[in-house]
């Protein structure tokens, strides 16, 4: 799963959101690192909808602007959970190997400020 996809699913895990809401949420989740553009977002939503991970609701008009809410399906939920678990295991492995590389006293020097 690519990172933008993962972040979109993560954004929707908090509850249904409309297009622009997803963009701002992804920006927040990724600490301003991933700024989704509309074309990328809608191509991803189109694919996720077809894969059954995301569901689109009815279009509604708020303040003269059209918006449609997207929500995570139960299949999307389990895929996201799987992916989160996989990433967690990878991150854990990486962290434990880094710890093994540096004997205890060196850790605080090698990782100033503490990474985890």
């Amino acid at each position, binding site marked *: 799963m690519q990172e933008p996809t993962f972040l979109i699913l993560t954004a929707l895990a908090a509850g249904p959101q409309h297009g622009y809401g997803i963009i701002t949420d992804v920006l927040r989740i990724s600490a301003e690192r991933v700024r989704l*553009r*509309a074309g990328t977002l809608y191509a991803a939503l189109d*694919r996720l909808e077809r894969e059954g991970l995301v569901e689109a609701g009815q279009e509604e008009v708020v303040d003269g*602007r059209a918006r449609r809410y997207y929500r995570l399906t139960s299949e999307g939920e389990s895929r996201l959970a799987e992916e989160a678990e996989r990433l967690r295991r990878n991150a854990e492995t990486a962290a434990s190997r880094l710890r093994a590389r540096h004997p205890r006293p060196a850790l605080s020097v090698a990782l100033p400020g503490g990474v985890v």
Partner: protein
Amino acid sequence: MTAELERHYRRLLAAYPQEHRDRHVQEMIAVLLAGAEPGRRWPALRDAYDVVRGGLAIRLHRAADQGSRRHWREAADVAALIAPVLLFAAMMLRAAVYAWSAARPPVVPGELLQAAELAGYALPYGLVALLVWLGRARAATVSAWTFAILHGLESLRPPSLGASHVVTDGAILVMGEPVVLSRIGTAVLPMVLCAVMLHLAPSPGPAAVGSGRLLIWTAALLGAAVTGGMIGRGPVAVAPPLIVLLVMGVTLLRSPAGRRTLLVLSPLPAPIAGGLPGAGAVAQTLVIGLPAAAVLGVTGWLTRTGRVKESGE
């Protein structure tokens, strides 16, 4: 100002499939406008690029859909037949133009011989087309590769023949012009394209278009090519076959498999027209060969991957 920006965005959204646009155009416009900084009249270049790229990505996904895979297979099947027919007609046109001018007095026997030789170079394509038509796909493929290799060897042969011209596939080389190794690319390309299309097609033949209609097209195309060659040179000679091609094209545009057929055949016009005027042989091969490889690569992926529910067989 917002209205102007909105208009530009709407134009960019043409990159999206109609059915997607019908459903999402309003909300996408809203998202795009919400993301644009105030006072903007034109979309930022990166946003414009992203909008178009997203549309093309969605189109590509649609193209790879199961339903449309069947159309791709049909398109590959027909294209494998139309390709050698087109090349055959193009080379017959060339032979006809040459024969007609050679037959006018003063008649030089050598020139007539060369017209016959030109027609001779068209025959391999005719044979490949015929084999495909008869359902002998394997024989057609083997022949196409054999002819491609022969063309390649032919292009390596030094022009030390008795005739005043050495005629290679698609080009007349005035004697004395050095034959370079790089010419091999342009010499074998048309036949290689035919061969590759035959490999891509699951069962090459006229099925999707209908053999009756394709037979009429082929006869009309050959008739028009020879007529064109007789009534004049240059644009006049090309006009009758172009009219037939136009009718074929419009008919193909009207069906999903037909539109895909046109796409699969898109690498052909360049080698038929003789490629870029003035470009070197290597540049020529690259300019024609790389897009052709891209088109045929995508076609191969679309026809050869994915499962399609097929009845019978």
